[in-house]
């Protein structure tokens, strides 16, 4: 099959992706140091870094959401079950047989159904949950001022930790899945340069979310 190069990721998209990646990795590292699993920065430094990174992430996240909304790119995250099963089958079996990916991608449809579902869950639920619990945790000493006596630090910390495990799991799978492109590095290159080499093929109509 013929190959073609398409421009998938705009400059800001790549910027926020890598910034967020770095921040999340550092948050995981410092967070697990605070939890007692890692010893590197020392507890105090880890807490200071974690707080700083958390706030930075929240600010970045506002820009990401703003970008998603204003560019209409949020439509790329609208979930669909169409071909979802095929994608799962592909990663379970087809990929070992060298079969082509069942859902070709284009500028207007850059995520396959499985990605849509994952990224929507991540962006709409998991990351928000992590940021919300983190922010409340950060504001622990101000709870009495706001009258938030119903909050329980232990419960909050355990939710924050559970989400952290989920995010770490996502990071592992995500980084691995990034090697499953046309070549091992093509997805990484795409996320850095914006350009990805893809099989020439038609994008189905249902994939493209038309603008109103």
């Amino acid at each position: 099959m013929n190959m073609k190069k398409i421009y998938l990721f705009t400059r800001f998209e790549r910027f926020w992706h890598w910034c967020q990646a770095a921040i999340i990795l550092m948050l995981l590292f410092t967070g697990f140091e605070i939890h007692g699993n890692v010893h590197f920065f020392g507890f105090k430094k880890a807490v200071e870094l974690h707080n700083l990174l958390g706030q930075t992430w929240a600010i970045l996240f506002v820009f990401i959401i703003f970008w998603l909304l204003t560019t209409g790119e949020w439509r790329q995250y609208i979930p669909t079950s169409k071909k979802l099963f095929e994608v799962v089958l592909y990663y379970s079996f087809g990929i070992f047989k060298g079969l082509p990916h069942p859902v070709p991608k284009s500028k207007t449809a850059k995520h396959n159904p499985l990605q849509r579902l994952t990224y929507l869950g991540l962006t709409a639920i998991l990351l928000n949950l992590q940021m919300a619990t983190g922010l409340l945790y950060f504001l622990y000493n101000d709870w009495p001022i706001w009258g938030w006596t119903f909050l329980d630090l232990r419960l909050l910390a355990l939710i924050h930790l559970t989400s952290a495990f989920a995010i770490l799991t996502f990071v592992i799978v995500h980084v691995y899945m990034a090697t499953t492109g046309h070549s091992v590095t093509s997805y990484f290159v795409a996320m850095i340069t914006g350009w990805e080499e893809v099989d020439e093929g038609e994008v189905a109509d249902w994939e493209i979310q038309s603008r109103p």
Partner: protein
Amino acid sequence: MQHMFHWILCGALALWLYPAWALAAADEAPGRALARQTVKNDDLEWITTDHTRHRLLQQDFTSPEEVIRACLTCHNQAAQQIHQTIHWTWKDPADPSGITGKGGLSVNNFCIAMGSSEPRCTSCHAGFGWKDKNFDFSNPEAVDCLVCHEQTGTYKKFPTKAGYPVSEPTMFEGKTEYLPPDYKAVAQSVARPKRTNCGSCHFYGGGGDGVKHGDLDSSMFMPNKDLDVHMGVDGQNFTCSRCHTTRAHNIAGRIYATPASEHRKSLLEDDLTAKIMCESCHGSQPHKTTQKANDHTDKVSCQACHIPAFARVNPTKMHWDWSTAGDTQREIQKDQHGKPLYDPKKGDFTWGKLETPHYEWFNGSITGTTAKDVIDPSTTVRISWPIGDKDDPQSRIFPFKVHTGKTPYDKVNKTMVIPKLFGPPQSGAYWSDFDWDKAIALGQAYNGLPYSGEYGFVDTEYVFPITHMVAPKNRGVYCVECHRKGGRLANLTGFYMPGRDSVQMLDMGGWTVVGVSLVSVIIHGLGRIFSSVARKKE
């Protein structure tokens, strides 16, 4: 070219801003700035009297009472003031029944109690002649002004003379010679109390250097900044009364169950408040505004972090087992600090140096036990213990020395007992005749207490709040010493602490999921490699 200009401009701007940035960074913590203002006038001389020039003091006194009479001619309220204080009564003023206190029936797990052994104990009484129950507490001339105010360092009360110095050169236990004071020089030297005055008793509580407190011993006469950042002679050089501020001879500090202060006001809120709390001078948010430590001050005492260990120079007694006393034949071993591990009069000891404190919630109040209180000998008896609760806004996590012991008690009446320890041979005193039954019977009778005739030894604990020996700011307790599993606060439960607490199931589950995903992607990756190699061979 334009690009270069841009960078030059940026560089210039950074240089221009640098001094402001550097100044901001050098700014000291608000708590230090506040405290520095408090002490900035310490060097000023406030004294308006030179006692050497008082005609009345230029005479050859022959007895301490004569000196006191001279003192009271000018300081005509001093004796009455002293008579109202615990330094005189040895009774807790908050307990109207009069049984709390060394002068009452309070017991500890050191030398237990005073009643019936007075002449030995009252060598640390600010008076003369308290040798038995008949001491006249209303006598103004029995007040010992000198022990707290003299500055020659030569005035010594003899250990067994009920508060009197010697009138002839006298040996104590064949080791130390006590000389009669030169009363004229002593009287002329008086000034406000220095560390040597307070320390002559409070550093030797329990009958020896550093025995009792753990944060008060002879190393505090001339501490350096590392040992005590406030009292260090190379630093602020505080006297005790710099913090233990005094009104009408009442000295600020905790008295049994009464906290040193009922409030945590700084001098900004009340400029005449006692300076007994750290907050008095440092405020309640003493650290730089960005410091997480400021968020701890509602739950953690300053002492908990700023006193990483007690007995940092001299050892302190950690355990005292009275049950083994009486073996006059035993060879006395010394520990690595050179401290005796046994004394036939007292039993076995354990000494500790650089001890890590025990932490408890503390609202400033400490429970006590008297020889009248019923105890439960089936468990360790907490003769004294801090009061506090994690949910009490007045309570903080506070460091303590816990002194453990095996201490005599009445097996039938289930009370601690007061043995007569000190007295001449054949008086029945334990330290002379080594007969517990006799000594307890005598002591109990003297104190008007019943004794069943059956005694035993019970495990006891006694606490001292650790509040002196504050280390310099960079020598405090590291965060992780508490924020980890099995750390300093492992014994305090019922609240979540980052780094210390977790749910094992969640940790195991979380790491399992992470591990499984990692293994899965590795297997998947290997599968891809092998299958692609296989396809290429085809």
